[in-house]
């Protein structure tokens, strides 16, 4: 299938299966606990009805997918440089994407797609509504062909030879490869927060759904509660916490391996191809000039192991995108070493960023966090402690909290820096994970400066740079210097009229 996609075409017929499985899975996810509850409480005779129900769901999903397949066509309009998708079963939708608005093209393969031997192709755009196209089943050559067509729109005339050339490049050795051992180290040292969130979400669902099940079976809740309470001696609490930490680490490792297994970055002419994944392989193609903020971060352990995490943030348009889609616009490259980082930065930013003149915040940076995060809560705690006898023995905790808090706030103050030179703005921040965010002045969309009236006398103010991928703040800086910088950046933005994506 070596066509140029200029005629409307359907996706691969296997798409029916993929789409059907997807729909069935969605329905199954939604009704999982109802099914379990029904399954246990039900007399045998109705069991057949249950089976019939499942069969009906499957049939409906396949029928629905068939209709979807019939109505889903796509083609490339060369003259207008547009990608057009027609879809919809009852209401027909036509989706038109201008090629230069495409941010990245993902080629994925989940288990089912792997078994059938097709690929899924997703197009991310910077459109104001964050709409995206997803083609669920397409064979490999077509997928890569289409991708090249989508991302190399500039020279429509010489497209064919170039594609061949590009395809050869794909086979070439990647310039960055994350080994299994590095990945293991990454899993041990980063993203605790996300894993913790996952764990909490998991326990929440289990407890919530478990309760509903208990209600459904009319099991005596008090019995369970007393058993649980009996188990909770101090020693077992410690064991429990240790187990939880272990589970956290394991989850972290599994997540890291699942997402970043065999991470490879290949350089194409104007684009970077990232591929990774353990079970579902994910290929992402991005063009460096669409990256808005480049960020690398490192914590203490990672510093000792000489590695860091790099992430590339692309434009997202706030509220219309759901949370998980917004994360999709940040590409993470964990576990590179400093040389690889510099190589990547050079590729994305054109040259390795140099730290220029560094600006540091005023000591008043410390005031608000110390007051609101330390003095206020500790004061409230102490007032409670002096009045309630049961809390009194725990007063030592307040001192510990206060000291650790002071230390953390002081570290965050010492790390809060912004460094500016002609081509780059580098914002450094963090307490444990120390991150450097790099922005080029031409990516700035708007600038806000603000100042509290009581800081007027001491010439302290704040700065926010709004970019399409989020904000960069610099707080409690010298206001005169900030104003100078703002004037300088405005000059840079307005003088050159450069594209920001």
């Amino acid at each position, binding site marked *: 299938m070596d066509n140029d996609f200029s005629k409307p075409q359907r996706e691969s017929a296997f798409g029916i299966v993929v789409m059907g499985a997807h729909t069935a899975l969605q329905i199954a996810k939604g009704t999982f606990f109802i099914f379990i509850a029904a399954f246990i409480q039900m007399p045998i005779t109705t069991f057949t009805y249950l089976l019939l129900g499942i069969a009906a769901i499957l049939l409906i999903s396949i029928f629905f997918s068939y209709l979807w397949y019939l109505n889903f066509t796509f083609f490339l309009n060369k003259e207008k440089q547009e990608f057009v998708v027609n879809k919809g079963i009852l209401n027909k939708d036509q989706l038109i994407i201008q090629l230069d608005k495409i941010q990245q093209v993902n080629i994925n393969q989940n288990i089912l797609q792997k078994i059938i031997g097709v690929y899924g192709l997703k197009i991310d755009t910077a459109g104001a509504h964050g709409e995206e196209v997803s083609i669920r089943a397409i064979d490999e050559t077509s997928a890569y062909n289409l991708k090249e067509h989508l991302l190399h729109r500039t020279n429509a005339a010489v497209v064919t030879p170039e594609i061949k050339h590009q395809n050869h490049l794909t086979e070439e050795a990647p310039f960055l490869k994350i080994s299994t051992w590095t990945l293991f180290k990454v899993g041990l040292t980063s993203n605790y927060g996300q894993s913790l969130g996952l764990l909490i979400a998991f326990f929440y669902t289990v407890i919530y759904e478990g309760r509903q099940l208990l209600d459904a079976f009319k099991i005596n809740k008090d019995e369970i509660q007393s058993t649980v309470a009996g188990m909770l001696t101090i020693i077992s609490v410690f064991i429990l916490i240790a187990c939880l930490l272990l589970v956290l680490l394991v989850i972290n490792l599994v997540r890291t391996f699942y997402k970043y297994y065999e991470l490879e970055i290949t350089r194409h002419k104007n684009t970077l191809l990232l591929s990774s994944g353990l079970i579902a392989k994910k290929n992402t193609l991005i063009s460096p000039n669409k990256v808005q903020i480049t960020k690398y971060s490192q914590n203490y352990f990672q510093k000792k192991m000489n590695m860091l995490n790099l992430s590339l943030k692309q434009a997202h348009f706030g509220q219309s995108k759901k949370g998980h889609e917004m994360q999709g616009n940040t590409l993470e490259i964990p576990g590179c070493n400093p040389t690889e980082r510099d190589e990547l930065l050079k590729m994305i930013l054109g040259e390795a960023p140099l730290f220029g003149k560094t600006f540091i915040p005023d000591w008043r940076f410390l005031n608000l966090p110390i007051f609101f995060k330390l003095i206020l809560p500790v004061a409230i705690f102490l007032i409670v402690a002096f009045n309630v006898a049961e809390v009194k023995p725990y007063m030592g905790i307040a001192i510990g909290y206060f000291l650790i808090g002071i230390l953390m706030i002081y570290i965050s103050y010492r790390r809060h820096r912004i460094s500016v030179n002609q081509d780059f703005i580098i914002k450094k921040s963090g307490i444990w994970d120390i991150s450097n965010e790099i922005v080029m002045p031409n990516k700035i969309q708007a600038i806000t400066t603000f100042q509290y009236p009581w800081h007027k006398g001491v010439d302290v103010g704040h700065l926010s740079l709004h970019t399409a991928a989020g904000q960069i703040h610099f707080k409690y800086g010298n206001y005169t210097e900030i104003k100078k910088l703002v004037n300088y950046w*405005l000059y840079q933005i307005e003088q050159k009229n450069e594209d920001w994506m």
Partner: protein
Amino acid sequence: MSADSLFTNETIDLDRLPKYEEILLKQPHPDYWKIICINLTIFFGILAIITGTLLLLADDVKRQAIWIISSYFVLLAASFLLFRLSFKKRGYALRKHDMLYKSGIIAESTTIVPLNRIQHIELNEGLFSRMYNLGSLQLFTAGGQTGHIRIGGIAIDEAKSIRDLLLKKLDMLENPETEA
């Protein structure tokens, strides 16, 4: 050509660059204060009705009546005062290459949107605004919710002319050959 020498070269220029902080800002139309007052009055009117019904109906609330009523009036006075202060602080300016808007209730913040970063422009006329021939102008950038400015209380004719001017500028930026 090291980066250092280039940067120092620019620092000399820095002082000669146009300074956004020294621009004379245009205040919103005096009638806009009336609109703010109308909005505040409506808000506090509804609040008064709700608290009033609560005070009459719920016995528990009745005992705290003095506190509730006095805090209501403190809130009322404080909002009028703060809005008045912030109204005095508001100001906007259109330069050749960017638009400035200054505002703030307590902190004084200035947002600057370069014209070549504007995504679209919106001119809104509310019900009360129309009575006083005012409008509010919004400039959106790709910076999302935070990177956009909304200038309320511009005389409608002026707002329209600013809008047309901006549109013309945007058009010129899109087709640079006409710019020269």
